[in-house]
């Protein structure tokens, strides 16, 4: 299969509108000649309604009203179940999926959801079903988890945990028995009140059987990620901007080069200048005064936005794409289309593969 696939990854802090932007980009890309899928993470209910996202299990469903657009929601437990079935022996898989710790890990490791998202993206790319894939990423401090998770997960499963627990380099089942007989664990169990550590070690040994396959998989996923177009979404608020800066500082670890920063909820630059000038064309003095005072406040916000974004664009030499602040987040596919209608600089990105 030599078809060119456009893959777009939208990363950034939580609450900046990643999911909405992903959905809007996908709506823009989709067409009769471009089968497009958007994988969302935890969409707001009204957005999910607009995309008709009601099925679970990672399976994309067609979006009503947009030709060529499908959407799915990340189901991390389903992804992990798939991973276990694909990369471990049937009897081990059965044991793992029944294990309480496995559930806990799949739900709670910070990297677990990101790994599920990255694996789901890879499966979509490899399926040959799609011309364009837009991937919303799970919230993570700094936004790097999506890129780091595959190798971190392999490493973890490969025995980092087990090595710590046993102090042994290559623990096998034989080691486990020696290990559980150690005095430290007998005391630990007395304090903790149960055979907790032993249970955990048993479980980790099972998990470890997937190591070779997962390590190889991590390399493939990374290649997919490097070929994709990565966009970093943010608002001009201090907290998400700090996360964008951290993301760029740590980027060298993952050899990813973002194609653009998307500033969501952007205010027009000319409000700053206009707020210093007299307002014309409003005869009603009271209305004029109210709108003037309001423009002064919002003009100040526009200036604050410019200041907080300047650093990023200059320092990292990355284009800035601004998406205007709209009073209500889009809740229809029409609204998604309108959100990006006047936005400049997108075509170059979405054409690239």
């Amino acid at each position, binding site marked *: 299969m030599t078809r060119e696939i456009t893959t777009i990854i939208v990363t950034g*802090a*939580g*609450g900046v509108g990643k999911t909405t932007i992903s959905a809007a980009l996908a709506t823009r890309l989709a067409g009769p000649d471009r089968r497009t899928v958007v994988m969302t993470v935890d969409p*707001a*209910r*009204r957005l999910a309604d607009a995309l008709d996202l009601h099925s679970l299990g990672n399976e994309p469903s067609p979006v009503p009203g947009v030709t060529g657009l499908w959407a799915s929601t990340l189901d991390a437990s389903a992804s992990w179940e798939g991973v276990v079935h694909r990369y471990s022996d049937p009897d081990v898989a059965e044991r793992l999926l029944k294990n*309480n*710790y496995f559930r*806990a*890990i799949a739900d*709670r*490791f910070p990297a677990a959801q990101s790994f599920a998202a990255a694996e789901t993206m890879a499966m979509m790319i490899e399926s040959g079903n799609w011309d364009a894939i837009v991937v919303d990423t799970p*919230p993570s*401090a700094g936004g790097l988890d999506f890129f780091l998770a595959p190798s971190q997960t392999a490493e973890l499963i490969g025995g980092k*945990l087990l090595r*710590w*627990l046993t102090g042994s380099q290559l623990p096998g089942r034989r080691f486990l028995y020696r290990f559980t007989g150690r005095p*430290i*664990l007998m*005391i*630990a169990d*007395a*304090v*903790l*009140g*149960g055979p*907790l*550590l032993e249970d*955990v070690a048993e*479980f980790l040994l099972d998990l470890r059987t997937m190591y070779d396959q997962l390590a190889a998989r991590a390399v493939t996923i990374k290649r997919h990620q490097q070929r994709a177009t990565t966009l970093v979404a943010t608002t001009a*608020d*201090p*907290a*998400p901007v*700090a996360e964008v800066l951290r993301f760029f500082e740590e980027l060298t670890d993952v050899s990813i080069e973002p194609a653009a920063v998307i500033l969501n909820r952007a205010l*027009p630059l*000319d*409000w700053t200048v*206009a*707020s210093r000038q007299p*307002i*014309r*064309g*409003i005869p*009603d003095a*009271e*209305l004029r005064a*109210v*709108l003037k005072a*309001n*423009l002064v406040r*919002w*003009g100040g*916000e526009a200036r*604050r936005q410019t200041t907080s974004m300047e650093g990023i664009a200059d320092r990292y030499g990355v284009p800035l794409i601004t998406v205007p*602040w*709209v*009073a*209500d*987040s889009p809740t229809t596919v029409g609204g998604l289309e309108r959100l990006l209608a006047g936005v400049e600089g997108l075509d170059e990105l979405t054409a690239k593969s």
Partner: protein
Amino acid sequence: MIERRLLIVSGKGGVGKSAVSAALGVLAARRGKRVLVLAMIQPSGLAAHLGVDSLSYEPTRIQPGLFAAAIDRSHALEEYLGLQLRVPRSLPMRQFSGALSVLADTAPGIREIVTMGKPIFEVLRGEWDLVIADAPPLGQLQSYLSAPETITGLVPTGAVREQASRLESTLSDPLVSGLLLVTTPEELAVVETREAIAEIDASRQILIAGVVANRVLDPLGVSAEAIAAVPDSPARAAGLLHTGLVESQSFWLDSIPDDPRLPFLFGFHTPAEVSARLAEICESFA
């Protein structure tokens, strides 16, 4: 809101938890209380909102009566083992905490109980009039609040279980502990807040002491139609954005309890300025 011994502050990520935690700390200290504000997870905006570069595990004095600290897991684990579980000194502590830190990454509830143990330990120590915990975001809060229960379900006997029951009873005592939920008047934040309220009310793990809406815009006092009728200009566009946002905010505000509301702060630039201003505003209701 600040009359109890422990106030846990949570909300969806990005709604201003740290700003509100810092503001209430400033306010309580101003009223003569001895206050500790604790950042429960990293990264946290708490240091910036208190006007300092960073926080350490040992409480730092911010201003008279106001102290702040940040929980880091390895310190918390050591303290948990030594002071809360009273693990005998004779144990090879390094090896033991190594094994437990693996467990903390694997077994449900351990990491949470170690973190949750810290603010409660500080309350029980009796050194503070008030401990404010800048808690994990709503998505993770439930696993922290239910950690004591998870542990008592998992471990039949022993020191871990005893400590967990102590946490459980301190958290659920409405005279001692309260939870403050911070939200913004937007769909995702409000929906998550409502779900959390229902879940926590049903579980009775902790009393919900209040729901604070942050970044609420004041109406302009003129109608959207009047603004729409003026010639196209930045003044018109800014007016329409403002009235549109007010309308959308009031829709979402209607579906949460009618508790105190904090205004959108125009013209406040640094995090420390924001929390100082919020402290003044909270003066009227907290």
